[in-house]
């Protein structure tokens, strides 16, 4: 009997205290015969830190929200083989339903294997696909690999959803010996962390997927462009690349064949626009990350103007599975338009937030309610933002929308890279539209006038609306600007920047109108539009609010109801925070 304890050490887990739990377990399990190790991120972020107990390869218990003070009980339980002492920490069936309703391909090893260990990856089937291609039964030709990916229907998971095989084939067909394969790990969409989790939890799967891509297009060099904000991902990927090189999976004559491929990592320096493939290439070349005019596409003239292929992390993470299981197995999942699975980062006002991988074709309602457990704190669902600043919001009336590229596109939102931020009744949609516009205006590289200046003007208009200074015609002006920016921008950043505003106007026009006409924020979120008043029934005349008001806007005498002078009120909220009788109302 051999027992093993694994602490989940993704960035989220570490932020929640996983490293302290691990450190506390080290002395307790020393010389006990029980192995202590780490895993990456299982994706159940709200339960971190998570500790798994295995007997051989069987998961005996998954302990959640573990703190250092729990470690002696955990050590005792493992030593005695009696887990009853830690039963309080075990994951509940309800929480476990988050995982059991998922279908994991890209995330298949995340939170299960040790991301620092090549052996752990090999035991989970790592590098079996590249072996199959290069060695078994005469192997597979690059054309056969591309065919297999074509059969699978795999489409780019970074957001655009372009067929992967088509890009690979175009790069393969391009003339020239010098070709490059690039991985876009510049995950810039705020609210998305799928790619980070894959690299931190299962780096060898990314490397293997990229090797297969490099073989298919004929590239001898593979480059991973990772956000500098992901230091742990960079560290684990560097370790994995060295391990793979030592084991003969990277370098000259891989597995004794003619196929050679070098790997390197390039740390990005922080620019959202570098998620666009030609901007990323400019950045790789040490330039300002500004997009190029297309065509020529990177498949013809990419990195140093040589044929190049770029896919995102999640796309590559599916590749080895497809080679091993066949394109048909992947295509069997999903809808006629969208094959396979998609990973989402479910966050916001959701009860169970984390990483969700589901077959295409599930509905938004299933993901948000069945998997995510619905809205936190008993509030009502209002909208879900899909695809971050390039995507749009989808309202409650469309919760039964099926997740596939076309159906989501029809709502005005996009599949995007997988950010899924849930908003409740207290979220102001006008203010959210402004938040996304602030982001894209700041991140616009400045190359195209429509994007650079258009987003700035939209930002100003949205700014005056949330400040209660909106004018008649502002909504129409926004719509006009949106159209001009979509038409006039060169790259995806500008072309999609209007999406959050357009969808917010489409589904929540009444909120915009309330802000402009009535100077009222229906969600009570826009500070400039709040009106504080005192409920005379509830007010006991204790005078505390009047004493706390920094501008002397509250008047009234002892034991009689007070009132607020709305002209003087600066909406600081001190009166409401201090009232013991709940008499201060905000509307």
């Amino acid at each position, binding site marked *: 009997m051999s027992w093993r304890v694994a602490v989940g050490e993704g960035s989220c887990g570490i932020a929640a205290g996983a490293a302290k739990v691990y450190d506390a377990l080290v002395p307790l399990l020393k010389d006990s015969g029980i192995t202590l190790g780490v895993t990456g991120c299982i994706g159940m*972020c709200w339960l*971190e830190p998570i500790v798994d107990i295995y007997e051989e390869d069987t998961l005996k218990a998954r302990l959640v929200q573990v703190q250092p003070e729990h470690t002696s009980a955990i050590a005792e339980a493992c030593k005695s083989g009696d887990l009853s002492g830690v039963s309080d920490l075990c994951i509940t069936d309800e929480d476990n339903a988050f995982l059991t309703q998922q279908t994991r391909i890209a995330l298949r090893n995340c939170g299960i294997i040790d991301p620092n260990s090549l052996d752990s990856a090999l035991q989970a089937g790592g590098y079996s696909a590249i072996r199959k291609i290069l060695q078994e039964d005469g192997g597979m030709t690059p054309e056969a690999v591309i065919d297999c990916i074509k059969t699978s229907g795999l489409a780019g998971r970074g957001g655009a959803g372009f067929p992967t095989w088509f890009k690979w084939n175009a790069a393969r067909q391009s003339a020239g010996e010098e070709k490059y394969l690039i991985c876009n790990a510049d995950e*810039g969409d705020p609210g998305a962390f799928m790619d*980070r989790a894959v690299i931190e939890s299962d780096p060898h799967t990314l490397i293997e997927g990229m090797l297969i891509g490099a073989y298919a297009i004929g590239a001898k060099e593979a480059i991973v462009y990772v956000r500098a904000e992901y230091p742990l991902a960079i560290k684990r990927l560097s370790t994995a690349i060295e391990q793979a090189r030592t084991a003969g999976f990277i370098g000259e004559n891989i597995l004794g064949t003619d196929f050679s491929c070098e790997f390197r990592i390039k740390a990005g*320096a922080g*620019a959202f626009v570098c998620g666009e493939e030609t901007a990323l290439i400019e950045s790789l*070349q*040490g330039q300002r*990350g500004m997009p190029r005019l297309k065509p020529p596409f990177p498949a013809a003239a990419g990195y140093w103007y040589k044929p190049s292929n770029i896919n995102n992390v999640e796309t590559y993470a599916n590749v080895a599975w497809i080679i091993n299981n066949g394109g048909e197995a992947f295509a069997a999942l999903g809808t006629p338009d969208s094959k396979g699975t998609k990973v989402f980062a479910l966050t*916001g006002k959701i009860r169970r937030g984390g990483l969700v991988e589901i077959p295409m074709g599930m509905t938004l309602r299933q993901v948000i309610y069945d998997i995510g457990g619905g809205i936190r704190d008993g509030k009502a669902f209002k909208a879900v933002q899909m695809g971050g600043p390039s995507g749009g919001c989808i309202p409650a009336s469309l919760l039964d929308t099926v997740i596939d590229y076309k159906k989501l596109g029809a709502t005005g939102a996009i599949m995007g890279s997988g950010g899924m931020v849930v908003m409740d009744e207290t979220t102001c949609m006008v203010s959210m539209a402004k938040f996304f516009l602030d982001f894209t205006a700041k991140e616009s590289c400045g190359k195209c006038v429509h994007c650079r200046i258009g987003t700035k003007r939209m930002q100003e208009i949205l700014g005056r609306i949330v400040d209660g200074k909106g004018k008649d015609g502002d909504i129409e002006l926004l719509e006009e600007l949106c159209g001009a920016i979509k038409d006039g921008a060169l790259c995806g950043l500008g072309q999609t920047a209007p999406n959050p505003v357009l969808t917010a106007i489409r589904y929540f026009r009444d909120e915009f109108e309330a802000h402009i006409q009535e100077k009222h924020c229906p969600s009570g979120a826009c500070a400039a539009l709040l009106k504080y008043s005192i409920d005379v029934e509830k007010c006991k005349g204790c005078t505390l609010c009047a004493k706390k008001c920094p501008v002397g806007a509250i008047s009234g005498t002892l034991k009689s109801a007070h009132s607020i002078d709305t002209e003087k009120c600066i909406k600081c909220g001190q009166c409401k925070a201090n009232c013991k009788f709940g008499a201060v109302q905000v509307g």
Partner: protein
Amino acid sequence: MECSCKQQHSDLSKLEPVLAQYAAVKGSLITILQQAQEIYGYLPMDVIYHVAERTGSTPAKVLGVATFYTQFRFQPMGKYLILLCDGTACHVNGSERIAAAISEYLGIQNGETSADGLFSLSIVACLGCCSLSPVMMINEDTYGSLTPEKALAILKEIREKEGTNA
């Protein structure tokens, strides 16, 4: 106004190993700047001029690249760098109020350093810890589920530890 770069005297020899490795490798400018920032904590103007000279570029070109990316700083940083997340999840969960509280307490805006040289504030797009939102990182440590009060308590504790209870 005299050019401020003339008044700086960074120890340029520290950058020599980096330049020896990368100056002649095409496409390495961002890598050189990243390593320069590791060494000096920020990008002093004389370092920018030096990098331009050694890579056969111009100061304008180097500065153009450096200012394009959010990672690069042009002023010395405080001892503690506060990275306050304003990603979508943190924003929805109230990061703006935390930013306001920190700004008021330290008397600095985004991108500035406090008068005592202790804190720099940088509001960033996403730290990827969305489930703990709102989140901030101070140097290597991450603090989650913040409220304005909790954020200020953390800063006060650091100030007390540093003995500059301003």
